[in-house]
């Protein structure tokens, strides 16, 4: 992944949290492009339109949640329709351990982080992917 051409997608219904995550990313990667979606439905449209490299995904959202978002991407890869393989970081307020584990085991998910997201956590994760 190239620092200059990196494209992030934030899928999160809470405007404040979206803003915070956006600030984190802009601070870490000032030259990156950051796209925002308020729910999974908007997120999936942006996914197809912009082909992001890294997605920060909330689970509980109106209209369409993170679960369905992941379902669509997994089905698309399963049927060999999708070529773009973004790294997905789930950022969630879910506290139930079993639920968190089942999200973490999903094929499309690279990492699961509990809310509130700390910038250092994000930094150390992204450093592995972006030289």
């Amino acid at each position, binding site marked *: 992944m190239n620092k200059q051409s990196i494209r992030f997608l934030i899928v999160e219904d809470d405007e404040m949290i979206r803003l915070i995550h956006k600030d984190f990313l802009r601070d870490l990667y000032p030259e990156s492009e950051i796209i925002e979606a308020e729910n999974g439905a*908007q997120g999936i449209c942006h996914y197809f339109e912009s082909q992001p490299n890294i997605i920060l995904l909330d689970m509980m959202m109106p209209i369409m949640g993170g679960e369905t978002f992941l379902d669509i991407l997994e089905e698309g890869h399963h049927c060999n329709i999708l070529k773009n393989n973004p790294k997905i970081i789930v950022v969630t307020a879910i506290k139930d351990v079993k639920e968190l584990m089942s999200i973490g085991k999903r094929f499309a998910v690279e990492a699961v982080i509990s809310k509130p997201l700390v910038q250092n956590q994000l930094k150390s994760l992204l450093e592995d992917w972006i030289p």
Partner: protein
Amino acid sequence: MNSILIIEDETVTRMMYKNFVQEIAPQYKVYEAENALKGICLCFDKRPQLILLDMIMPEHSGKLIIDIFEESIKHKIISYKPKIIVISAIETVEELTELSQRITVSSVMPKPLPFDTLAEILKIHLQL
């Protein structure tokens, strides 16, 4: 190439629709999806002009696809806008009213499908 997408979970029904569509519009390529998730991926990947959409399917219903396209249009995310023909065994007036208020739905057809009506509708939407 111009194309049509059929989203229907029952194999026999899907085949029936496919044969029918190919007869009416032979110049169109026909794509098939047996569930809503695959349907969404094919929509964005192949960008068909027209979608025949079954509403009642296991796990994710046709409503998911309508929701996604409405968000796309409302927030001007993707300029692509297919014509969606919903095929549904509508049981209540509320359901019919709800469907006809959706901005992305071009037509609503009952199930079982009256094929001569579908032929007319396809001719109108595809300008055959």
